[in-house]
């Protein structure tokens, strides 16, 4: 058996895994468009979409068409963008910190983003320069908050190119507590009109989806995601160690900056659109690594697809469990994710790779 046949089999396997995840996402997407308080049969979902593409079947009602095109489709696309974005960000940050317990929510990136988003919503009117940015101002504010917290956590927990996991989690706890308290403080001083509710920022919600949000999300998330996808070889090398990666020819400093900024843009945008949704970035890369190994060539795109699948699935549950009311989606991801996190810690205690 030669190395070339080994790597060929590996590439084929990776392609199959990604194809499988893609098909899974597609199936779930149609399911998500169909179910809900107002049920649209799958056949009608298909005919509404095909009529948008020019092939008219006209066997659906105008109400069905409106619900699908104005409510469900943007919501589904937002779930895919946010879930995929959180998934790939989790994978990248874990690679950067060289630690499988890292997640945007745990280390304070999401709450940092939420804090700055809340500050912007409440006090933004008094900063005239922001108005030029229009609908991009809110995601940008969240991005700055996310980047700030990522940077602080990184500086606290890293020394000589190694990241200490206990310092990392503890500084995450501290920053989460502080950011959470400050969010509460800002909301305390805000009037009801300025803020929808606190739940949105702490538990997440996809309910506010509309085409404007999807458009902005698409513009701000897809670019950084592509950037992250291109970093797979650097992330593989970083897994051996920062010094080792440098010796092998990785510009470590540049890679770090790319990863941190791209992650903060994605998380900041996601947070500003749907609040803080936890555990997606933690669970997703792990499931993939457990089953298919650690090669980031698969982990990065796989995490995007699986993250999108997970959040789309969670959103279906959020919309159907307490019909016709809706459950905050963060409750569902946390109920699934927190036990997984505990299991992960126990496992981490037993074996270290």
């Amino acid at each position, binding site marked *: 058996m030669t*190395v070339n046949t080994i790597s060929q089999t590996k590439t084929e396997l990776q392609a199959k895994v990604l194809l499988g995840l893609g098909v899974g996402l597609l199936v779930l997407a149609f399911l998500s468009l169909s179910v809900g308080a107002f049920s649209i049969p799958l056949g009608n979902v298909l005919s509404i979409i095909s009529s948008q593409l020019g092939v008219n079947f006209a066997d659906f009602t105008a109400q069905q068409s409106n619900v699908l095109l104005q409510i469900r489709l943007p919501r589904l696309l937002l779930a895919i963008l946010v879930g995929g974005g959180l998934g790939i960000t989790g994978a990248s940050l874990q690679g950067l910190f060289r630690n499988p317990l890292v997640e945007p929510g745990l280390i304070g990136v999401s709450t940092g983003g939420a804090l700055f988003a809340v500050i912007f919503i409440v006090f933004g009117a008094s900063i005239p320069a922001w108005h030029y940015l229009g609908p991009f101002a809110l995601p940008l504010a969240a991005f700055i908050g996310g980047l700030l917290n990522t940077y602080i956590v990184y500086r606290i927990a890293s020394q000589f190119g190694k990241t200490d996991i206990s310092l990392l989690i503890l500084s995450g706890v501290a920053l989460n507590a502080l950011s959470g308290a400050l969010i509460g403080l800002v909301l305390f001083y805000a009037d009801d009109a300025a803020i929808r509710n606190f739940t949105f920022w702490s538990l997440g919600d996809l309910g506010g989806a509309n085409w404007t949000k999807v458009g902005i999300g698409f513009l701000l998330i897809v670019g950084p995601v592509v950037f992250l996808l291109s970093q797979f070889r650097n992330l593989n090398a970083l897994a051996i*160690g920062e*010094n080792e990666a440098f*010796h*092998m*020819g990785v*510009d470590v400093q540049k890679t770090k900056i790319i990863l941190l900024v791209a992650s903060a843009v994605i998380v900041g945008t996601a947070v500003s659109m749907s609040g803080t949704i936890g555990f997606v970035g933690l669970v997703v890369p792990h499931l993939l*690594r457990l089953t298919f*190994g650690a090669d980031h060539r698969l982990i990065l795109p796989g995490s995007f697809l699986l993250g999108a699948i997970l959040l789309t699935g969670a959103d279906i549950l959020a919309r159907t469990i307490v019909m016709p009311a809706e459950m905050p989606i963060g409750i569902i991801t946390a109920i699934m994710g927190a036990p997984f996190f505990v299991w992960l810690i126990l496992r981490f205690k037993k074996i270290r*790779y």
Partner: protein
Amino acid sequence: MLQAQDVHFCIKNQPIIDQASVNLRPGELTVLVGPNGAGKSTLFKILAGENPCKHGTVRYNGRSIHQYKTKELARIRAVMPQHSELTFPFRAIEVVEMGLFASGSDRSGEIIREVMDATETWHLREKLYGNLSGGEKQRIQFARVLAQVWEPKPFPRYIMLDEPVSSMDIAFQHKAMNILQSVKERNVAVLVILHDLNMTAHYADRVVLLKKGLIYKQGSVEDTITSENLAWVFDHPIRVIPGTDSAAPFVQTNPNFIEKLSLTLS
């Protein structure tokens, strides 16, 4: 050739390396020897480009190390640090493959097979790196670093290893040193930090003796591995039985001294 001139490195105004000048020549195996805390690893890191030196210059093939991009540097020098741990479940062959990060050779498949055969790690290829024993891990890392300089090139290259055989059994220690001896024939300069003085005497072309951040002596094995030099550098009575044409010098510590020491302690 790698030329390091008047290299100086301080931590909190305490010199760790003081005015060190070393040359590494292709075709030569240089061994860095010295007691704990002498500054071996620091000097090693300066030469490898990992630590910047405060004063002095390091030149690779006549060009200052600062003028190299990270990737260019990786094409002419490979480094094996003391310990490398992975947090993610990579397989052994994936770790070795990473050695080809900078070169991206067309022959990557053959190179990986060759270095894994040489280090006798081919049978470990599908295993998770984290499940390997300490010595096996070291052999995998050794294979990764070898892969980086394996393909012959028209320009001089460098391979630097910080205690590369510390976890290997005696047979592999010698196999690893023999591999390095054959690698140096490919226009490669080898720098190794070793603690085993007999190993040093056997394989080194040049020895650099380091004590308290200063290069005490450097030169051939005959000039450096002597009773006086080693006793001074290590602060410990060491006897060297001079080598012959067919055998390297033999280094022996004086066991009587240890006995006396334990007597005074009790």
